[in-house]
């Protein structure tokens, strides 16, 4: 039984110049249980991880990450993006049970 995927945090500028490479930083609340830990009663805590992260820009996948249990709890993922036009980002985190959580952000062209 996978635990609910927690709150995502995303930081990117609201606007950028054409051609500018911005940094997109993301953080999501999740225990990333490895399946190798035991609780106080000695029972194995079942594995429960975010398995995949995807970033889409106007519907097109621009970046993805497949995560293993070796990613720390509350996964932090940062990557660049070259802004060519205004548009809409959609970030999606999916766990091994297939549940997912998304966040969307708009970016404008400065000036």
């Amino acid at each position: 039984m996978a635990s609910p995927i927690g709150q995502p945090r995303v930081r990117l500028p609201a606007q950028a110049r054409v051609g500018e490479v911005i940094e997109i930083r993301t953080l999501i609340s999740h225990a990333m249980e490895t399946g190798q830990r035991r609780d106080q009663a000695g029972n194995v805590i079942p594995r429960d991880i975010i398995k995949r992260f995807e970033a889409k820009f106007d519907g097109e996948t621009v970046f993805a990450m497949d995560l293993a249990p070796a990613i720390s709890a509350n996964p932090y993922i940062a990557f660049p993006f070259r802004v060519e036009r205004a548009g809409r980002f959609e970030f999606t985190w999916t766990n091994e049970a297939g549940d997912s959580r998304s966040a969307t952000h708009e970016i404008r062209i400065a000036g």
Partner: protein
Amino acid sequence: MHQPTSPTRRGAMALLAAGVTVALLPRPAWAQLSAATQAAVDRIRGSRTPQEGRITLRAPPIAENGNTVPISVLVDSPMTPADHVRRIYVFADKNPTPDVATFTLTPALGRAQVDTRIRLGQTQDLVVLAEMSDGALYMARTEVKVTIGGCGG
């Protein structure tokens, strides 16, 4: 802002600071890998031989706690449709399973860089493979010492 006042501590911090912030490639990428990591690398490379270079792998030489180790991988690439980094693979050579992450990149990024935080079970090498759009493979590795706590428990 934070001014150290303890001389012992200052010496220690200087030692720590000396090794930090530099990009590291301290050992040949083809030094012996654990069997599990070697198998994972072989699956990716097939008949290709990874080359050295182009990858800047940043990780603390000493991780204060192995459960949260910040890492950054930068690959030298123009990131154009004709010439870009397609994938970055990260392995922890001596973790129970070496897989850490696989990143899929596109020219839309403009720069081939990824940052995340990882778990390292013990002092070991971090191994990174970068696959280019023309199929060329690059490899880098760096050692991260994982601290051992003082209290035996």
